[in-house]
């Protein structure tokens, strides 16, 4: 993970956003690695939705378009459908989450990754996503509106 991380604090909650990632409005992050994308849910998304009990991504081989369900994250509070931030095909999922779903909460940008996708068009995918700074602004607005308890 890049050393530079933006952060914002709302009440007692601090949300972190590594600057080397891209973000969807729905709260997923993307790390582009050549033609592939490593994805997960943002620190803001995981804090907002609570302790993760189960996290399951679509099986390798599954094609997805941006916006289609690519994973389901079940927390104590809600069942979250994670829309894919990119169009492509799932090539790998995080097997560690089967026994340790809490990794999504503890290390959302590292060990808590959800899936790797082969991306159809990386440049187009990048353009449709937010930078860390832009996403942080969105997250801050949402957090202040919600007042996470």
């Amino acid at each position, binding site marked *: 993970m890049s050393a530079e991380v933006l952060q914002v604090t709302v009440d007692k909650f601090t949300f972190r956003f590594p600057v080397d990632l891209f973000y969807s409005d729905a709260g997923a992050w993307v790390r582009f690695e050549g033609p592939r994308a490593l994805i997960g849910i943002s620190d803001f998304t995981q804090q907002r939705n*609570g*302790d993760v*009990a*189960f996290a399951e991504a679509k099986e390798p081989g599954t094609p997805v378009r941006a916006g289609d369900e690519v994973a389901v994250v*079940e927390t*104590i*509070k809600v069942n979250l459908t994670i829309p894919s931030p990119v169009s492509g095909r799932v090539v790998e999922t995080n097997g560690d989450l089967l026994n340790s*779903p*809490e990794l999504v*909460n*503890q290390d959302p940008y590292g060990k808590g990754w959800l899936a790797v996708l082969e991306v159809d068009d990386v440049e187009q995918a990048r353009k449709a996503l937010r930078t860390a700074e832009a996403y942080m602004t969105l997250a801050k607005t949402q957090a202040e509106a919600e007042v996470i*308890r």
Partner: protein
Amino acid sequence: MSGERKKVPVAACSGIGKSLGAAAREAAHILTEDLRPDQAKVVALALLVMGDEEAGREVAGREAVAIDGCKLECAAKGLACAGAAKVRKVAVFDVVRRHRGLKPEGVCDLNEDGLTLAKAAAEEAAKAIDEIDPEGRHA
């Protein structure tokens, strides 16, 4: 049986921010009032961590049971800090994973799913009590 048997100390996280904390607290009460009233006793976590001598004497050098709501394990850490010889951990969060689909709600008043989880956690804690104090169960 001669002499007064000391009850196994139990600490619950009682987290006020999440229903899992409320479920952990309820589980501690179910354990010490319904399931194992003669063998287990609740110890106030805050008193322990703040160094209360009487609370500390209940725990120091003894085996104890921690009932925590989430993976932060505040009760287990508190018991360890207070000098418990061994801490057996019951995590309501893990109980949730074994009862998929339950959605506990409420902090002051748990919903039905929350109470179900609390009972399941209490039963797990009761097994831990039995392991620590097998004679008490069969006395």
